[in-house]
């Protein structure tokens, strides 16, 4: 059994969930878990002088879904420009796989790259329930990381019918059934009602109280129904909300109205940066980051991930069909739209954020403001909405912007200033994130928001997912090349090289529901779906539900 033991010795540990901020501690690992101690002579990794953190946890990424795969198919030129060789895995560690990079890498390459950055847990934030089977297959082919996904609800016909009819309890049972049937981890709502509006010809739903044509359901009712269902079911993660009006000038009014509508209820507003625009009077292009973050700071029930924009290539992939239609119209780039039956949508437009473009610069600035104005890093965590705001591969550069004011100030000088008037960045935000705060926004915080008690921390009993960084004055360099990464107790990255690529686990839930609800759901399938009720649930789901 000795090969399953490991002592990571002498590193400076940043384990904020356990109140440890840079103290020298050994991490003892046995059978994939952190243990109190190991007998003398256990295999040891000498990491003296290095920084030790729990493995990274990505709360919001698009990396394993049918939508991602349509995006992959759309950008062969990106893959051709960045082919990915097979990693030099140790003997007996399975077939190493080649692949391709770009903003939406192939699956094996995605797993290797996440591990190479020290990330060991990743969630896909938007999976159409009918496509769940596809996401499980992609995750099976994404090694090194434990993975799960959020099921897209809120524009689905069955739920809308329950809302129209005021059947909140049945809606809750349906949510529970759907999560279990698809092997999802959490509920995601994208542009509540707006995707259905796009598909029905109404085009979009721009405020909380305008009903969908011919129905009673409003964005407000959709949000309340889902948030109440998720909280009543005591799901580990709050409802993951992509607000209405993403990317639109003046949209902070909708964002604040959404937060107020849900006041007092646990909710996670995702990629907040894309929802914080509005000048001093709340309209037009400008930064509303300070106003929105003031609300977030004062309301502990709200959590968020930033959705930082990073300059360079991106690929916008979202269920928010109407947004991608507008982006296609304004950018003239390639455009994919897929209306997904009875449930949701999918839009894809490859994109690029440019320093010299006014809106790109505003978006970049708003994201940084949100980070720097946040008073509680446990509730304002790191994401780029990969690959929408930029690739997950840019996380090290983002961490550098947060930790190193001089780098940030230099970058600020380079960007288009046109829309930055009113940005707190120009007021000289001097804050620099500490290593402990980085540990919070990249692992401890996301793990806590996801209800993953065994992740994002390294106390006794925790999952033995550990990242070790060699100190480097160049913060981006330090975070882009961890010296060691340990996944479930096995060293996958050694001396900066990927050497093992074990299969990751699956994170999913299976909440209980009233079986009586199935009669109605079954009838609905028979009347409305092209898929038989019996063929809808994903069979042979891996792992145990949480």
């Amino acid at each position: 059994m000795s090969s399953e033991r490991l002592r990571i010795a002498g590193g400076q540990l940043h384990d904020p969930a356990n109140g440890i901020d840079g103290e020298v501690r050994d991490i003892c690992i046995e059978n994939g878990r952190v243990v109190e101690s190991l007998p003398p002579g256990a295999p040891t990794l000498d990491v003296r002088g290095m920084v030790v953190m729990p493995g990274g946890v990505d709360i919001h990424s698009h990396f394993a879904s049918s939508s991602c795969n349509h995006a992959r198919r759309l950008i062969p030129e990106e893959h051709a420009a960045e082919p990915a060789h097979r990693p030099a895995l140790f003997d007996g560690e399975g077939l190493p796989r080649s692949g391709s990079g770009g903003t939406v890498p192939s699956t094996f390459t995605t797993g290797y790259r996440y591990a190479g950055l020290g990330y060991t847990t990743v969630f896909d934030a938007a999976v159409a329930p009918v496509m769940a089977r596809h996401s499980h297959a992609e995750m099976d082919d994404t090694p090194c990381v434990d993975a799960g996904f959020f099921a897209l609800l809120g524009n689905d016909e069955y739920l809308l019918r329950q809302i129209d009819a005021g059947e909140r309890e049945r809606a809750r049972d349906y949510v529970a059934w759907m999560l279990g049937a698809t092997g999802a981890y959490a509920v995601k709502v994208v542009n509540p009602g707006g995707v259905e509006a796009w598909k029905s010809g109404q085009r979009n739903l721009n405020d909380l109280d305008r009903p969908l044509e011919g129905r009673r359901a409003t964005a407000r009712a959709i949000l309340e129904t889902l948030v109440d269902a998720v909280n009543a079911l005591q799901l580990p993660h709050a409802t993951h909300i992509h607000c209405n009006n993403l990317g639109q000038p003046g949209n902070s009014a909708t964002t604040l109205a959404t937060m107020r509508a849900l006041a007092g209820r646990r909710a996670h507003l995702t990629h907040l940066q894309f929802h914080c625009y509005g000048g001093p009077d709340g309209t037009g292009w400008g930064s509303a980051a300070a106003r929105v973050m003031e609300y977030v700071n004062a309301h502990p029930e709200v959590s968020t991930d930033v959705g930082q924009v990073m300059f360079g290539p991106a690929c916008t992939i979202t269920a928010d069909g109407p947004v991608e239609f507008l982006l296609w119209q304004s950018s003239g780039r390639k455009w994919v739209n897929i209306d997904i039956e009875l449930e949701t949508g999918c839009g894809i437009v490859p994109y690029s954020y440019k320093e010299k473009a006014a809106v790109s610069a505003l978006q970049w600035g708003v994201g940084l403001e949100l980070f720097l104005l946040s008073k509680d890093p446990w509730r304002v965590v790191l994401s780029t909405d990969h690959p929408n705001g930029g690739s997950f591969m840019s996380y090290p550069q983002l961490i550098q912007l947060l930790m190193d004011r001089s780098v940030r100030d230099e970058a600020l000088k380079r960007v288009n200033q046109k829309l930055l008037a009113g940005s707190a960045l120009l007021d000289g935000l001097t804050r620099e994130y500490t290593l402990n705060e980085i540990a919070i926004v990249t692992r401890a915080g996301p793990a806590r928001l996801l209800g993953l008690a065994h992740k994002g921390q390294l106390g006794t009993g925790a999952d033995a997912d550990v990242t070790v960084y060699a100190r480097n004055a160049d913060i981006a360099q330090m975070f882009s090349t961890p010296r060691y990464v340990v996944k479930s107790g096995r060293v996958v990255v050694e001396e900066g090289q990927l050497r093992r690529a074990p299969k990751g686990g699956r994170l999913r839930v299976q909440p209980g529901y009233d079986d009586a609800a199935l009669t109605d759901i079954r009838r609905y399938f028979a009347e409305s779906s092209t898929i038989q009720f019996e063929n809808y649930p994903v069979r042979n789901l891996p792992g145990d539900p949480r």
Partner: protein
Amino acid sequence: MTARRVGPVVCLGCGCACDDIGVELTGDRITAADRACALGRSWFGDGQLPARILVKGSEATLAIAVARAAELLQGGPGLVYLVPGLGTEAQRAAIAVADAAGARLDSVTSATGAPSIVAGQRRGRATATLGEIRRRADLIVYWGVDPAERYPRYRERYTRAEAAIVAVDIGRMRGPPDASERIGVPAEREAAALGVMRAAVLGRKLPDLPSAVAAAAALAERMMRGRYVSIVHDAEAEGEVDPQRAEGLIGLAHALNVPTRCALTTLRGGGNRSGADAAMTWQTGYPFAVDFSLGIPRYRPDEPAAGVAAAAASVLVAGDVTAVPSSIASALTGRLAIIGPRASEGAKAEVAIDTGMAGIHEGGTAYRLDDVPLPLTPLLSHPRTAVSVLEAVGRAFAQRAVSQ
């Protein structure tokens, strides 16, 4: 002998992947497939498949045959060729073999659906899953295709009876005979017609048009008045198809989303073709025509698939060998291994390993033509699954890599 019933199960007779089939089993035979069309009944057949393992024509053990298949692919410029009859799990295993072998990787897509895919890579596409068409489409334009021929249950399952049907006959490629409206476009005018239609939708001023094209412009006006327009074409249409058709249809569907909503549906044949495209895309970044010879995936959509097949010194055909397109079959002159249903019926194979058929003997996943993944149910037993044999070939490569 008592019959038993299983279902509803998925039929892979065409890309419609109807999942409402009730199958009757008597002993080890399929004796009925309720609700299946003629194509589906033929696809299910009686479920009887050979179960041999042959090396150079003689019976062999599985271990020997697997080792020979791996050896053969290591011998030189190889090709792994995916044909219908595999679940996506087996397709994934076959892609892994191609990667390990540094081989070319292709599927029937290169000989069937490639122009639509490549055009989509240039422009994108506006589409919908089939249930959305059934729910919303009030105007359906069949572009040179009558689904009744190759996709018999398409209209029954995926369209509303109330929807207005327009047939666009392109040369001899005719739309449904019962269409309420019909226009004819000479084949040589097809690209021009599509261009004019898009221009009309974009509100451009059109010059005086010849009558064949003018009718198309009028149809475009009609489409703009639809609430949700579905355009349907066949990626695998037989006969000469204008190479600009796919991109023209994509451009038209895109443009129609400004004044109204529109989805372009691309019909595909059976046997989980879309699954092969999907799995290749997520594992390599490319949906077909992949070249691993430099140890990385490179995309070669412009090379004629038959030429690639002819140049391969060794070939692994994965899937139902009887579904290899004739243009490819006649080009296969290299050493040949076949793993899949009816492998032992393939001519010239050095290694032939019969497996079950996805959806009849093997479970797993298959994709409908609109990329919706569906579960497959094993109905009958077979001594081997394609996925287990292909994974064994992959392991043989891994062991060789270790021993070298």
